């Protein structure tokens, strides 16, 4: 089957069985290996991407459900080699250690910031509760998301 979707703003067409996981399509058909696999069962969030702006686990989404929709991956965040606000905040606060959870965390963080919610600790914890990190204790990830959200609210 052939499916048309938007990936990081670009239209793409993929030929794949309908039940092929979006994660495999991204990593293997499209070469977008930034999205990671930590469990393949919807437990770790390393494979988080945005599907029409909402965070989903790409290991649980078959490609047939993505037809006509827009996917954003970690590769879609930086523009012309410049880190976006959230990526920059992660770099400043130390929110990425080994980095394997980072692409998924960034997606969860982007969705949180886009929601316009006030960057309170509880709300951020809630927003990243589906993304496991074994390195950071989450402290600096929460700091990073709060920092980026704060900068978004108070530009400059």
């Amino acid at each position, binding site marked *: 089957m052939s499916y048309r979707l938007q990936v990081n703003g670009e239209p793409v067409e993929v030929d794949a069985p309908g039940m092929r996981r979006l994660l495999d399509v991204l990593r293997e058909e499209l070469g977008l*290996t930034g999205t*990671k*696999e930590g*469990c393949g*069962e919807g437990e770790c969030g390393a494979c988080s991407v945005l599907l029409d702006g909402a965070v989903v686990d790409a290991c649980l989404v078959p490609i047939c459900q993505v037809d006509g929709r827009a996917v954003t991956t970690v590769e879609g965040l930086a523009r012309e080699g410049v*880190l976006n606000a959230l990526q920059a905040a992660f770099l*400043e606060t130390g929110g990425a250690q080994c980095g394997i959870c980072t692409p998924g965390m960034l997606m969860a963080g982007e969705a949180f910031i886009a929601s316009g919610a006030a960057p309170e600790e509880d709300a951020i914890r809630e927003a990243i509760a589906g993304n496991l990190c074994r390195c950071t204790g989450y402290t600096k990830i929460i700091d990073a998301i709060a920092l980026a959200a704060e900068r978004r609210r108070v530009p400059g």
Partner: protein
Amino acid sequence: MKRASTRIAPPSRPAERVAPAAPALAARTAFPLRREGPAKLTGEARYADDLVFAGAWYGATIRSDDPHATLIAIDRDPDFDWSRVLIVTADEIPGENVVSLISDDQPVLVPVGGEIRHHAEPVALLAAADRSTLHAAKRRIQLRTERLPAVFDPLASTQQIAHFAIRRGDAEKGLADAELIVEGEYRVGHQEQLYIENQAMIALPRDDGGITVHGSLQCPYYIHKAMKRALNLTDAQAVVIQSETGGGFGGKEEYPSMIALHAALLARKLGKPVRMIYDRHEDISATTKRHPAIVRHRTGVTRDGELVAQEIEVVMDGGAYATLTPVVLSRGTIHAGGPYRCENVTITGRAMATNTPPNGAFRGFGAPQTEFAAEMQVNRIAEALDVSPLELRRRWAYREGDVTPTGQVLRESVAALEVLEAAAETAGFSRKRTDRRRASTSGGTRASGIGLALAWHGAGFTGAGETHLASVASIELTDVGAIRVLTASTEMGQGTKTIFPQLVAAELGIGIDEVEMAPQDTSLVPDSGPTVASRTAMVVGRILIGAARKLRARVEESSGQPFPRSYRDFAKRNGGIRIDERFEPYPGITFDEERYVGDAYPCYGWAAAVAEVEVDLDTGEVAVESVVSADDVGRVIHPVLAEGQVEGGTLQAVGYATMEEIKLADGRYLNDRLATYLIPTALDAPRITSILVEKPFSGSPHGAKGVGELPMDVAAPAVVAAIHDAVGVWIHELPATPERILAALSGASAPDTPGSEPGTRSGARANRAAPARGVDPRPEAPSDPLPLRAPQDKGGDWERDR
């Protein structure tokens, strides 16, 4: 879990330090950003599974289904088309069938006629061009076996992997003279490292007949050695290249050698690259865990709270093969007394083999197990003496000049009191404990508590380990005037690639961006030892500083100019030079490995933690609300990275304390998926405050002592102490699951309302408490020859006297 909403101040908090600020590093004022950070943040960083090699096949491992058996045959279904599948068995191993490490007891593959010693043991290897063929083929292989009797309980095992005894003074006499003896038995179970990137290796045949492996790993030269041995390769034919590594925590210390050998055996026979990428299920069911342990204490004290004797017995479950068990046991044994001055100490440690998957390295390396027990013991003694646990530690904690159980005089860099006071003060420990005791008495369904723990952690390898390793690290001034750092020390999240350039740049007086890092590729870099034991910053950092000083001197002597202004011209005129610097033993440090006497470590790091918890009295659920961890790391090289280590290690310890548990049946891990082996999410994680304390070590030119493992030693006992403060029962077995807490509560008299009577509440109840065993994860409950867990006769008398 509910917690008060707090608005977070946008900029990350600077590290607080209780020691005077360090002068040394030029780069101190501006801390560099994580060097490989941008690659990790944009998805450009290439982890093993992200690497693409044309024509690569997929590899899989056929594993035993028995915990102990003789392998009779490997049967292939004759109805399956095997022409599309490659199979490798033990008889095709060109070298020795052994995963080279300490004892050489673990085979790469169990041969036909050989002994299967644990569930999920590798028996045969398969490869196919596509995953569906591979999966189909896997199902068509049957192992014919004959079951042998299996042992799952280390106390029932007769097969000893390692044994240590440490003696100082006369513990027996000390106990006889003591006015109060407190006994206790403490148990800890398996813990999975649970790096988020599963184990992964890709092997490529080389033109010279050798093999190159790319993979997720901590110790390139462990794999290099294992490949030479099992595959009969020369130094140059075995090449190990680290790909970006998504966490290790010890779990990628020894098992990657096994996976690399498997991938290499397949690639060698196939003549094409082979990808051996574990999924989470295989990773949890087959790879190493933290050693379960049973630790028994008898401690003698005087009525006025002097510590006079410690008698400690440590039993670890090594699993089916030795792997790193002797070294884990050694560290666990040396640390078993906790950071406390005691004249009469006997510690015995033994590690027993069982028919369960081998246990291995995990952050803390034996110390979290034994220090949990030591801290439980101190807290229970404080309760029995009716003194504050903080006050008791103030009295007992090591100071400079004190002597450890191995007879080591702690000559310098002892910060037990500093970390203790820093953590206690920041957390408001004394005030909160008192307030809580005065708080209202009426019965809610939730109880809160606060707990404290203190720990020490020997920095670097034990004893003469570093001397035997004789690590080499190099700095090269290339002929185009670039400065390159060459080490086999791997980055896996802790920041190796940032702090090495920092140290070298500071020493050479140049900008950090002018220092390049060579890739961790054994064909390019020397063996700077494994990336373990919190040794990278302290030990390898010191070697690099030595190399940088030599390079600087060479250039300055020749040019007569300061290095920063002359090195580029020097390189143009004279060509490149490379300084290979070898580890020099720390002066005045000696250890007798036979008798276990002397300087077990060149120095120690110190950590204290205060945890606050809330316990649901109906469900037994524990919410860890906050942890303050104060860690003495010698000198802070990079506060953001060091804090990151403390925060991450603390959360792993909180998981260890409250939820992480492996259940076994017939030697098989039952909860071998991420849906069933639970680690803390952001909602389970406490607010973590890290305080970096600096008590430099004179043997390191930069003063650093290492940070990675310290926080792992200390937070779990602090959490369990806080649970006791909340509900009045001691949980003697980790993790403190709701089941164990409810069992302990029902075994005790009905829980008093927390905070009813200052001073006596917890003491009185815990002494009456029934043994808090809770649910044992093993099918047969291990035998329990010692009826411990509460102060016994003498203690009871003393309690009544009082």
